[in-house]
């Protein structure tokens, strides 16, 4: 990323794509597993969660990128944490005010974004080393990648667990929902199999 010789638009594109697939936070880096498992029983909460993460990631990346030259090593992580916790709180308040149902469904998993490794990882690995533009693009890429993954997972689970997607029935009437898919079992197994599938597609990539 530090390669200045390349054109900046290439760099942006690559940064964006990295988050979407090559360095997808869930499938590739195995970060942020708790929300991935906990909120993917249905697409709606998953999408909400993803949006929250995008918001927090964006804000924290911006702030960290802005003050990257002022950071002192031993207080660096503390600074990150403080920033993230603040924006998570704001996101939480916002949800509670405008999406009370979602806020209730997600429960403590919204504040748990604070300890979601994705955000602090991006702050450390990208924002504290790069300029504002790259940081923003990275945040968008990573955040969208995370949200997309969550939605895919949630889509599979919701269809099987309830026969619906976005609470709209999609399966034929004779379909009997697989309740287990909405439970922890379904979460773990679906994610496990999906990771396996991703590994399979990228076998040549080492």
């Amino acid at each position: 990323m530090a390669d200045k010789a390349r054109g900046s638009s290439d760099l942006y594109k690559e940064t964006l794509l990295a988050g979407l697939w090559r360095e997808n936070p869930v499938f590739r880096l195995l970060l942020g597993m708790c929300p991935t498992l906990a909120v993917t029983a249905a697409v709606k909460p998953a999408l909400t969660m993803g949006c929250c993460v995008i918001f927090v990631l964006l804000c924290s990346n911006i702030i960290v990128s802005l003050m990257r030259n002022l950071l002192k090593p031993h207080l660096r992580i503390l600074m990150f944490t403080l920033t993230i916790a603040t924006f998570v709180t704001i996101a939480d308040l916002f949800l509670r005010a405008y999406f009370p149902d979602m806020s209730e469904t997600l429960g403590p998993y919204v504040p748990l974004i604070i300890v979601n490794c994705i955000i602090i990882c991006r702050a450390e690995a990208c924002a504290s080393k790069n300029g504002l533009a790259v940081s923003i693009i990275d945040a968008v890429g990573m955040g969208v990648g995370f949200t997309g993954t969550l939605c895919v997972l949630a889509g599979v689970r919701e269809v099987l667990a309830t026969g619906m997607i976005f609470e709209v029935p999609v399966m034929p009437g004779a379909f009997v929902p697989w309740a287990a898919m909405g439970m922890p079992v379904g979460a773990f197994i679906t994610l496990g199999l999906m990771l396996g599938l991703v590994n399979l597609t990228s076998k040549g990539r080492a």
Partner: protein
Amino acid sequence: MDKVRHFVEQSWLLIVSAFFFGLLLAGTDYALAPTIRQNRIDKLNRLAKGLLAEAEHFIEVEEKIEIESGKGKSKEEITIYKAVGEGEQCVGWSFSVGGPGFQGTIYLVVGVDAGFEKLAGYRVLSSTETPGFGDKIKYDYFREQFEGAPVGELKLVSTGKPEKIDSEIVAISGATISSEAVVAIMNDSVLQVKERMRKKGLIDNGR
């Protein structure tokens, strides 16, 4: 003195940003708090309205009711809403009570008639019951058993005719515990609310 300077050099950013983040937080909270509070009331009312069809709107009763939960272990404060129908006349009461369910706590919105004689039914405010089993406490066929049931000791039975409106509640097959939990809430908390309200003279002490 050097030490202080060193400290300031090291941590000024943290301190300053902590302060501003604090301001930011408090500002957001201040801006959004009323909406959040209103949301909660709205939800309660929406649910309660489903129970008490005649109600036009709900009025928060100023006096808080304190009931004992968990076998007298702790006290809980409950806010009662008075359902007001046409002509400002009391058509019932609604309030939210909770109790232990199969996995987590079940919160119910309970509606009763004006005289606290008959249950108008309940709606599940929040629960973590097993989908497919305990989740059925949200289903109509189970809930309907409570509608019109007398306020008092309900009895859970395993077999019987659910259509019958009496103090016998037929359990959900395979989810006895969830069924039991609902009945327990009714038996435990609702009765207590009734007691307290009667003491406070909020309801007509008919009997």
